[in-house]
Each structure stands twice: as C-alpha cells, then as structure tokens.
C-alpha cells in the first residue's frame, strides 16, 4: 500500500503540539519508552496520512459509478454541508477523547495497560490532526462562513462538556472507564471510519485506512484489559469484579448506540455516497458485535474459574448459566457480564427518555426508574452533573412539560462568543438552549 504523509501549516501544527503539551503531558514518557513497549512498531508521528490507490468511483448512492470528488466546491452544497459536519464532529471526538482519558490515566493498576492507553491517546491526536488537515487543505466557503482557520481554532478550544457528541462530554471516573470506553466507544469509531472509507469525497476516504489500522490498536487497548480483569474477577480478585465492569458497560453502551444517530435516519448520507449504511443497520451490527464481546469476556471468566474444562464443556456451562439463570459449577448469572437492552438509559434516538430497564422491562414511575438506573450505574457517575441533567430532563418529559424529542435536542449547545486569533485560547464555547452543534448526534445523525 502506498501512503502519502503530510503536515498542516506550521502555525496550526505548532498549535496542535501546544494542545498536546496541555492535554497529553505524558507524551514525552510515551516516546521515551516506545521501543520498550512497542519494539516492532514504527514510532508515532504527528502528521496526516493518505492512502493512495483507493477506489476512484463513488461506491453508493445517487452518484454511484461517477468519479469521487476531490474538492468540496464540486459537491452539492447540502452534500458538502453533511460532509463538513462529519469532519468537524470527527475532529471534536478525537481531541475530546484525549481530554477524557487523561483524567484517570494515572489510576491504571498495570503499566502496560497505562502505556497502551497513552499510545491510543497519541494516535487520537493524530486522528484529530488528520481531520484538521482535511479542513485546512480545501476551501469550505461553499458551505460555511467559518474559515478553515476558525474551525481549527474552535476545535482546539473545545473541552469536555462542549464537544459535538454526547459520549465525549462525560467524565471518566476510574481506569475501568478508560478501557471500557476504548472497547465500546472506539468500536463505534471503527464503524464510522469503516463507513467513511467509501466516502464520495476522496480526501476523506483516503484518510480512513491508516486511521482504521490505528483504531484496531485502540480496541485492543480496551478489550485486552477487560479480558484480564474478567479472569482476575473469576479468581476472586479484590481489585476488580465483574459487577464493576458491568456498571461501566451500562454507562457507556447507551452513549455508543446513540453515536450512530437516530435509528430512523442515515438515508441522506447513503444517497450522497458518504456512507454505505443507514444508522439503524450500522447500530444493529455494532450491538451484535458487542454481544459477541460480552460472550468472549464471560468465556474468559468461566475458563479462568474452571480451567479443567475443555472448550465444549466451558461453553455448555456458560450457556446454561445464561439461559437458566442458575449457578452451574459455582458460577452464578450475577458473576458474569451481560448486554444491556438497546433502549436502556437512552436520551437520543427512537427510545429517547423511555423508561426502559436494563433487561428491557418497562417502568411507569420516574423515581422507580431513576432508582433502577442508580442501581445499575457506577457510583461515581451517579453523582455527576451528566446523570443529574438526564434525570431532570426525564422528569420534565414524564410530566409532559417537554417532549422526548425536545429533551433530546437540549444537549449543551455550542456558541462562539469571541476571539479570532488562531491557536489562542480566546474562543469560548458555552452551553445554551439553542440547537446549533448539539442538536444532532454528529456524523451519523443525518
């Protein structure tokens, strides 16, 4: 495969490095120890990559078979608008996840887990850099009054709470969040990158393969520790339990499902040749993939607890515990992790603000439902403003003071209130009740 490497203009490149110094202060440690932890892998570099030799023709939608676009100005304005929204949202998520991971990075119990997350953070920085490259390398004035420079400035000014997508506005409470976020939320990212690799806009499509290769590592940075923790939990560890892991899965999976956008949408992106699947189709594949991940984690538990069993015997034990909800050879249903219902704890999409329980059960009373959520979510998260805001909005919906659709729209909105100097911190984003930026769930919301 042929890869072209490039850098964004110097002042923006330097701005990203400054951003890195603030939000990724352990970058130096990562690079100093790279060869010890990743001896067979090329050293990280802050740059943009484009894969050459990708498919020349638009691969789906109304323009299927025509040459891919190389300039935003050649796209239909609405198509270009969707594309620009996707690039900006993607950039926001890449930088946003670094801000989240740094909160609890130091709490890792194992150095390997910590360094893997650190490398993942550096690669997220590169993914953000890649999106800035797309914003700066083309002229977007056909669809936006905001210049490329201003867009970069805006993205680098965002902090947790002001990012475009909900999942990137929630604080981490423990290192279990770091790993579970990689396993669940980066998995959504993998789907988005996979879909975007067929984009009718060639520079975007060319950006995806190198990002996907790095994303495979990000998934591993989450799944590998989760597997180890399930094995340790099976052996009675005092430092991690499957109940801890379950609660963190419950915290993130609903946000991951929402990142695909409203279950009724996505057709426009398909028609425009920007993605090959509608939202519900991609979301369903994701949910089934997480189901497989959960089974894998449970098999780790069973095999660690009962190492004398052969494969078939271990599978039979797991199947019986899950199906019958009874203890088999000392393993109880509660000892394992389970996939929450698709409608559990949702605040966007078709089931937004439904009172649907963890197993799909219906609740009629808001307080009972909030108590149910409290029992299934991590203690630290229950005390967060994110959960409080959700609870308050849920009461308003239940009381008929607002609709679920309105409540879903009232995420923190983004408003630019000042500053023009590129690379400065003079831009402020504030939460408001408008619809800009926060109204839709980003790249998959069409």
């Amino acid at each position, binding site marked *: *495969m042929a890869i072209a490497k490039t850098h964004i203009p110097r002042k923006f490149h330097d701005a990203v490095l400054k951003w890195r110094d603030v939000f990724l202060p352990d970058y130096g440690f990562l690079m100093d120890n790279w060869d010890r932890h990743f001896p067979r892998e090329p050293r990280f570099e802050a740059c943009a990559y484009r894969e050459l030799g990708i498919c020349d023709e638009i691969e789906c939608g109304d323009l299927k078979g025509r040459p891919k676009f190389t300039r935003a100005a050649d796209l239909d304005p609405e198509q270009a608008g969707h594309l620009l929204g996707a690039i900006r949202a993607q950039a926001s998520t890449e930088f946003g996840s670094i801000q989240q991971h740094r909160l609890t990075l130091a709490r890792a119990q194992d150095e390997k887990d910590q360094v893997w997350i650190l490398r993942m953070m550096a690669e997220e920085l590169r993914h953000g850099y890649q999106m800035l490259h797309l914003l700066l390398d083309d002229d977007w004035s056909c669809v936006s009054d905001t210049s490329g420079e201003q867009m970069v400035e805006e993205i680098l000014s965002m902090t947790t709470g002001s990012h475009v997508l909900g999942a990137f506005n929630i604080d981490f409470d423990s290192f279990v969040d770091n790993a579970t976020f990689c396993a669940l939320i980066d998995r959504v990212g993998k789907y988005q990158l996979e879909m975007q690799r067929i984009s009718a806009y060639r520079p975007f499509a060319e950006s995806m393969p190198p990002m996907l*290769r790095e994303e*495979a*590592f990000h998934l*591993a940075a989450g*799944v590998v520790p989760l597997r180890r923790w399930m094995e340790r939990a099976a052996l009675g560890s005092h430092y991690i339990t499957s109940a801890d892991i379950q609660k963190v899965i419950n915290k993130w999976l609903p946000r991951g499902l929402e990142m695909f956008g409203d279950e009724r949408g996505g057709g426009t992106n398909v028609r425009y040749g920007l993605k090959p699947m509608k939202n519900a189709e991609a979301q369903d594949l994701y949910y089934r*993939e997480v189901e497989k*991940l959960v089974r*894998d984690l449970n098999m780790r538990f069973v095999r660690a607890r009962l190492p004398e069993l052969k494969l078939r015997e271990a599978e039979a034990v797991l199947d019986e515990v899950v199906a019958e909800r009874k203890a088999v050879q000392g393993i109880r249903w509660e000892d394992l992790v389970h996939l929450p219902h698709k409608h559990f704890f949702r605040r966007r999409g078709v089931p937004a603000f439904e009172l649907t329980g963890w197993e799909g059960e219906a609740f009629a009373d808001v307080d009972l439902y909030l108590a149910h959520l409290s029992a299934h979510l991590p203690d630290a998260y229950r005390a967060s403003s994110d959960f409080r805001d959700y609870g308050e909005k849920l009461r308003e919906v239940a009381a008929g003071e607002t609709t679920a659709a309105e409540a879903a729209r009232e995420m923190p909105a983004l408003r630019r209130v000042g500053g023009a100097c590129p690379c400065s911190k003079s831009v402020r984003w504030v939460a408001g009740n408008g619809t800009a930026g926060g109204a839709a769930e980003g790249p998959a919301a069409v």
Partner: protein
Amino acid sequence: MSDETAEVRIRPLQDTDLGDITGLDEKIAGEYRPDVWELRLGYYMRRDPDASLVAELDGAVVGFMLGEVRSGEFGLEEPTGWIEVMGVDPEVRGRSIGRRLAAAMLDYFRARGATTVRTLVDRDMEGIAQFFTALGFEPAGLTPFSKKLA
C-alpha cells in the same frame, strides 16, 4: 456436523473473533492458548485489518487465514503477499473453506499490488503442502535454514 447447504461467508478478521479462533486452535491442537492468539491477532489487525480473513458458516467462525503484503523480506523487494497462519474447523473440512479463504486473500493481495504470494510449510505436514499445491503453489528457490540457540 455441518449443514452442506449452509452458505460460507468470508470476511475480514475482527477483534471479537479472538474467542472463536482460540477455540478452533484448541480443537485442532488440543490446547487453550488465548494469550498466544491475542498477540497474533493484534499484530495482524494493526498491520492491515483487511488482509486477514475468517470464514463463517451459519454465522459461526469455522476457519481463518492470517497474512499481509510486505516488501523487503529476505531481499525480496517486490510487494509480496505472505500467508502465515491458517486453521479450519475439523468438523467442516471438505467444504472448501481453506480454498475460499485463500482465494479471497489472494484477490486482496493482488488488489494491494502484490505480484507473488509466498508461504512456508513444514515438511511433516503433508496435508498443508497438498493444499497449497492444489492452489497452484510450487516449491520456491528459497530454502529455510535454522539453528538451535539453546
């Protein structure tokens, strides 16, 4: 027992295939080695997530093939597709699972610009040698050399 009418689907390897591949290896080799396969799959997925493949039959993973396109090994400068690890569920052998995996992998290698595909086969594994011969592979001029260091 496999259903002869069920459709075989070949798709790129996913990280969630680890449990299935570990299980296939256990069926073939009789040993549970999750850590070995975790490292191996991680390597191939980071190198090129599309190159390595699994075969599904009725939604169950029944075979896998790991490989990639590289240049520069042993002075071979041209882009070369390397087939490095494969396995097929003993219960579905005879369904051309390995052949389908190889065909898909070779197509991918071609699309990646590889002009040659190579592999190494243990002389004691006659079945594997026959498999590659049936696919049109021929003994190459390279001879593997090794020396015990312990």
